[in-house]
């Protein structure tokens, strides 16, 4: 049979090259899930302490920060009558765990396509599985770490609240943000190898410019009008809005507000209205869509450009 006699019209659609996604969501999910599970096994089943190892890092960071800020800098004791600092330890631990998820997943994604070069060059599978399996792997860790956070919070005297039901939503928004960034970073890394150190620095900046150590009321006070109590305030209240437009700040602060302590202001309260929340939410959606777009565009050429 020669190609000349084949009625091309009857053949349907020609195949397309490698793509970010495939037509079979079940297969996509199985792949992502199984890769993440295997990576997880690799990380924890080989070592004696297993899971504890990955808990050590956030816990050490927490211990250092907690001792420094509550015992030495005395952040929670400096505001008598202000209940937003109650359970500062649990707030701090919760933020550290969420931020650890953010940085672990995004930093891990930067090199992921290159690290899986053999797969990309030799097997046809939806490329987006690679960054998303890294995000999923980090989510397994996050789930376990959150258990520790809640145990800690209960021991510290936090009572279960109805707002705990917001947890899945908070984690979901964070996961969307992280997924968008990991798609973006992993495809940019193919072309720009200095994305890795750049992203490490940005990660550091985000750590300090989000409510991890610093409590939001302190930020609001610092940007707010000068008063007798806060003579060094900047007197530019809208900077607090800028600060709260960072989606990471919103997510961490909402966690502190809804999970640990209602006295610390919700992001909506800092921004002035619920409508203003559309800005950080818009950024999350924008990052995701942009990351998806970039990854989708680069996916067909990944195997050639590595």
């Amino acid at each position: 049979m020669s190609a000349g006699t084949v009625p091309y019209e009857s053949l349907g659609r020609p195949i397309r090259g490698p793509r970010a996604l495939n037509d079979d969501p079940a297969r996509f999910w199985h792949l992502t899930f199984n890769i993440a599970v295997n990576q997880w096994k690799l990380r924890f089943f080989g070592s004696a302490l297993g899971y504890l190892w990955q808990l050590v890092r956030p816990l050490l960071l927490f211990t250092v920060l907690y001792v420094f800020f509550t015992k030495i800098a005395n952040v929670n004791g400096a505001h008598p009558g202000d209940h937003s600092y109650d359970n500062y330890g649990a707030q701090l631990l919760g933020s550290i765990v969420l931020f650890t998820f953010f940085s672990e997943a995004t930093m891990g994604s930067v090199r992921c396509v290159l690290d899986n070069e053999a797969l990309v060059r030799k097997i046809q599978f939806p490329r987006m599985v690679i960054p998303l399996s890294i995000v999923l792997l980090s989510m397994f860790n996050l789930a376990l770490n959150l258990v520790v956070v809640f145990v800690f919070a209960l021991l510290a005297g936090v009572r279960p609240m109805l707002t705990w039901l917001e947890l899945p939503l908070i984690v979901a928004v964070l996961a969307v943000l992280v997924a968008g960034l990991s798609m973006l970073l992993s495809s940019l890394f193919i072309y720009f190898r200095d994305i890795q150190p750049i992203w490490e620095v940005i990660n550091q900046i985000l750590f300090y410019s989000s409510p991890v150590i610093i409590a939001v009321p302190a930020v609001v006070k610092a940007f707010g009008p000068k008063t007798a109590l806060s003579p060094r305030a900047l007197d530019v209240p809208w900077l607090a809005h800028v600060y709260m437009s960072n989606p990471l700040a919103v997510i961490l602060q909402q966690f502190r507000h809804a999970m640990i302590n209602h006295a610390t202001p919700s992001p909506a309260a800092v921004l002035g209205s619920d409508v203003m929340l559309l800005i950080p939410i818009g950024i999350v959606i924008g990052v995701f869509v942009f990351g998806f777009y970039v990854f989708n565009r680069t996916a067909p050429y990944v195997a050639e450009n590595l």
Partner: protein
Amino acid sequence: MPAIPRDTKGLPAIVAREVSKTFRVPQERKHTLKERVLHPRSRTRHQVFHALNDISFAVAEGEFFGIAGRNGSGKSTLLKCIAGIYGVEGEIWRRGRVSTFIELGVGFNADLAARDNVILNGIMLGLSPREARKRYDSVIEFAELKEFEDLKLKNYSSGMYVRLAFSVAIQVDADLLLIDEILAVGDASFQQKCFDVFNRMRDSGKTIVFVTHDMGALNRFCHRALLLERGSQVYIGDPQEVGDRYLELNFGRDPEAAGTAEGRGDGEARVLEAWVEDDQGQRQPAVPQGRRMTLRARVSFMVEVEDPQASVYVHNEEHKAVLVASTVLEHEHSGRFRSGEQAVFSFSFDNVLAPGRYNPVFNLAHRGSGLDVIDRFEGAFSFVVTAQQALGGIVDVPVEVVVERGESVPGGDLPPSLELPV
């Protein structure tokens, strides 16, 4: 050649229409954002490399289709295009579930045990997790690795590793298999097993595309084959023909194929050139085994020479003379050659030489011992004997092979201790 099984109602399994693939290779690669920012206007120059040009073919359902070509001819690239790993210009249609074996064990993780790897690899190749788990036992059994299933892959020998990978790949029952050179691995018994599997797959009507430069395998399995050279389609059809053309391509542009070097001797005559002809009388750098072939040398006489004797020594790659022929036996009185006369000495024989490269030496001497050399034509040309398979002997003559069993075997009166198992 096996007949092409055609599914009369079905469409072809693969159709490629004017498929081209070009790679843009940047001459100096900018890999950092810093460089882009510092030199925003300097453009990276690209070298365009045409890996495939205008390839069109169709593979029928149930056909075993070979892709042959030399290194760098684009055969693996073509397979990757069919597999969907590279995007292409032109169009490729494909039907049915595809399994690609570009390389065995891609995606295996050395730190995980066989079980995890088998299941993950199965999913990678298109199985659902349930199917992958269900087939795990048969995979391990086929790979003969039952006792090592809990071992991490890093502790496997390379043979075990390959066996496991191959077993996974064949358990994925796809309709369309794309196979790249995987027979190059494994020991002889495992290769035999692979061959058996391929035969079984072919018999069960699967469509298989097979990239190789092993012409023996090509002949044994493929219904049809495609020959690529420098990214272009040279020939498509009978694998035997593809095999012959492939060998031609491989040895064809060999500068050694025709030589004119000068030798030593008293110089009363010169061997001007020497060459090989096939049974059609065509000069060839490569001749197929089993046909008649001729070695010829053109000699020019400087002075009058009486009854010179010409001999040819055909050396194999191990520098052993496997064939010697001379005018001594039949033309002892070869005649009187005048000054300025030219003559051609020919040696024809049925080519029973084992496949390989041969270096003939022509020796022209005065009548007598053959040591009084006039001219010697040596190391200036070689030829290649091609064959579909080599069993390892120096010559391949037709051998009648008979297996007889039972009591009345000839030689059955041997003492019992010498009796061989039949």
